[in-house]
């Protein structure tokens, strides 16, 4: 069975590594990493990942703008990972089609929970 493919987008390497670490035991395959919005869009096009972790605050295209761009794409499961955990941000993200919202600092349990949600929704 093909593994779930994941794309991680964040301009800070430590965060990307952290997310990758927490994803290790969860039976997913990390197919790519991007450091900004443009790269993210390219990689999403070429790699067609199942899940994408998106930081909001990035140079160039922000996470929310990316959400707008992929709004009509039903085959992708976008999860916002953001340092801003305020209500407006959460609501906006969800309204824009985010399937999950994780605030930084990232707790491992949240990563586990979102992968669980992905698995449930895809079954």
């Amino acid at each position, binding site marked *: 069975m093909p593994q779930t493919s994941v794309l991680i987008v964040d301009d800070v390497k*430590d965060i990307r590594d*952290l997310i990758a670490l927490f994803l290790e035991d969860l039976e997913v395959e990390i197919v790519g990493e991007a450091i900004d919005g443009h790269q993210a869009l390219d990689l999403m096009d070429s790699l067609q990942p199942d899940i994408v972790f998106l930081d909001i605050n990035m140079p160039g295209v922000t996470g929310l703008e990316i959400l707008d761009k992929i709004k009509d794409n039903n085959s992708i499961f976008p999860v916002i990972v953001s340092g801003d955990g305020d209500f407006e941000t*959460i609501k906006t993200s969800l309204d824009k089609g985010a399937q999950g*919202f*994780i605030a930084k600092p990232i707790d491992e349990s949240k990563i586990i929970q979102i992968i*669980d949600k992905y698995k449930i929704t895809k079954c």
Partner: protein
Amino acid sequence: MINNSSKTIILAASFVFFLISCLVLFASKKMNENSESLNDMTENQLFEEHLSSIRNSIVNRAFILFKIHETSSPIKREKYFSEFQVELHNFEIAKQALNSNNDHQDHRWHSIKTAIMENHSNQEKIANLLRNNNQSQKEALLINKFILTQSENMTGMTKLFNFDSEHSKSHYKIVNDNNSTRNILLFFGFSTIIIGTFVTRATVRAISKSEANMISQGERIRELYKISALPISIDEQIYEMLKLEAQVLDMEIGKVCKIEPEEDKNTFIHIYSIPSLNIPQGRVAKLERTFCSIAYKREEPLAIDHVKRSEFKDYICYSFSQQESYIAHQVWIKGELFGTISFSSSKPRKAPFTEVDKELIRLMANWVSVALERKMAAEETTKAKQMAEQANVAKTNFLANMSHEIRTPLTAIIGFADSLNKGNYSEEQRDQWTSSIVRNGSHLHQIINDILDLSKIEAGQLQIEKSDISPSQILTEIDSIVGSRTRDKGLTFNIVYQMPYPKTVFSDPIRLKQILINLCGNAQKFTENGSITIKSYCDKSGHQLIFEVIDTGIGMTEEQTQKIFKPFSQADSSTTRKFGGTGLGLTISRQLAEKLGGDLICQSTIGKGSNFIISINTGPLTVIDFATDLSQLSEIKRYDHQTVEYNLLKGHILLAEDNPDNQNLISLYASQFGLSIDFADNGQQAVEKAVQQKYDLILMDMQMPVMGGLESVQMLRQMGSTLPIIMLTANAMTCDKDKCLEAGAEDYVTKPINIDKFYQVLAGYLPKDESNKNATNIDNSTELNKLTNNFMNKLPSMITELNEAVDNLHWDSVQSLSHILKGMGTSFGQPEITRISAIINKDSIKQNSKAVVKDMADLKNICDSAISDFKNNQPKSG
């Protein structure tokens, strides 16, 4: 009958008519024939007569001629000549008649005519010759010759007239025939008349008999129905009917009987008897000894004209009842055989029972059925009306009671709270008042719960949730709840198990406990000294688990034990005042017991005590372990009644609740359970906190400002949180629970919160704290260590960069750097770094340089110690 009669009439009439027609036809045919014959004969006769005349004339003339020839007297000769002339004259007449008549006689006339005419002319000649006295010799010879041959001729002539006698024979025969026909006609005619008369009589008799019968049956029915139209009670109507029919039938007794074969009972529920017998209504006889024992088994009416001469003469009922005549029919009520209606007499029947009699008793049996059914229906309606009125009265009483019950504790609560508010009380008073408030609040809570429970039960809304439960555990819990209070009152409290006892059964633990607590509460209320005992045992074959709550209290009368299960009614009208309670507990308990597949009954002796027996269905017992010894029921241990201990739970929970008092309360409970708790004042805050921090469970109140509980739950689920969420709700209705579950919550707790229930719910989702609290879990140690290494190595440079930005008031840089630090600290084991960075971040947005500088100092300190700690903890490298 009527139909038969008319058939008979028609048949008879047809037959008679037919006979008559035949006779008439026959007669007329015969008569026609005869009259024809007679006509013929008459014609013949004339013909014969004429022929006779001719013959006679010829014969006479011949004779005369002879005499003339013989005589010599001239006088005689003259006489004879005139006679001759007369004869000649006759001949002429006859000849004329014959010639002018009779076509069909022609052949006969013709055949003899020639002979006669020849003869006639001869005779003429001779006569003429004889007239002459002087005859020549030749003439004399001719005359002699003629006379000699005359007799020969006469013979021949006679032969021609032979048919004479035959014709007269025929004539005679025909007349006879006519006579006999006439006789036959007369005979048959008379017979017909006689037969016809008889048939008519018989028919008429039959008709009038059946008409008479019908008239009498109709009359009898009419008379009976007249009674049913009288404005008297049904019982009186039945009596009058029995009396009337008994008199019509000339019987001594008429009765309606209720028959109970299993008890060999025959009750004369309605009876008419002649004055000399005067048998009372309601007499009970042994069924066997009455004829009704036979009658009620038969679908057709039983009619015995004379018992002594019947097949029943050896029956017991004959020897006992001494009745010689009997007629009866079954009486059915509502499709079931009820008894009989019967008429009997010590004298045999003068005339046998008729079909009409049987028809009539069948009719009467039907009427009595209907009448009795009507009576029963009327009684039921009256009873129902009474019960409805009673229920109405009870409901009104209840409302009055409830209004009082609710107001009383409210008064205490509000009153004492008000006093506390005003201040100015001693410590003792404060303690008294607060405990009173709690007590009254509890009581009020109980009352409202009871009312709600009862409403739910009556509306069929009560949910039973069965699971595998340990009855001994439940009883132990009861012991802890009820036992201490009971012992405080100076009573002994014991639980007794009868072996073998099931370790588990399949039932609803909450409802079972509810029942037991209610019963124990009652036992305690009404017992001043002695003991309360719960005895429990299992009825395997009936799949029932039984609990007996036995007290040595004031007890109740039989009547009272019936009353107490009725809603809104207690044993005594003063009970509420003396003992409190809602009057609903037992009603609810019984209904619950029934819903659990069992029942609740009460046995009591006034002054001695009461025993309430609950049974519940156990579910399948084949897979259940049974304990044979108390020691095998492991949950039994004496509780320390002073402190209630909870197994500590482990976790960090979030409470979303806007009411600060509730926050305080729940936080108190949570800490009692060993949990740490965080607060959010509304839904939005709850979502934010849930996102930003890690919790093991969320308690979400339904009603909150800004964003309510349900919406928040939905959002949390949308975000991807799979935490257990417990809703706090003030409404306990089923639909609310469904709403909670639909929104995504796991479970719910009703307000006001009961600490035990609260613990149970939380314990369902949080692990028990078995280990040292301070232990922290670090997984993925090596990898995380590596990353943490990275972070820690980078930290000093990040701090330096941040400092620079602050010094240079590059607020954008300060913001973004602090934002990054904030997002990393906790992940790498430095929550303090996250915390301070967050503050710096906020302050930098506000561009509050003073605060930022101060915070930076804090941050630097923390980072320095973190770095040094980290370095110290590293294994020596190299």
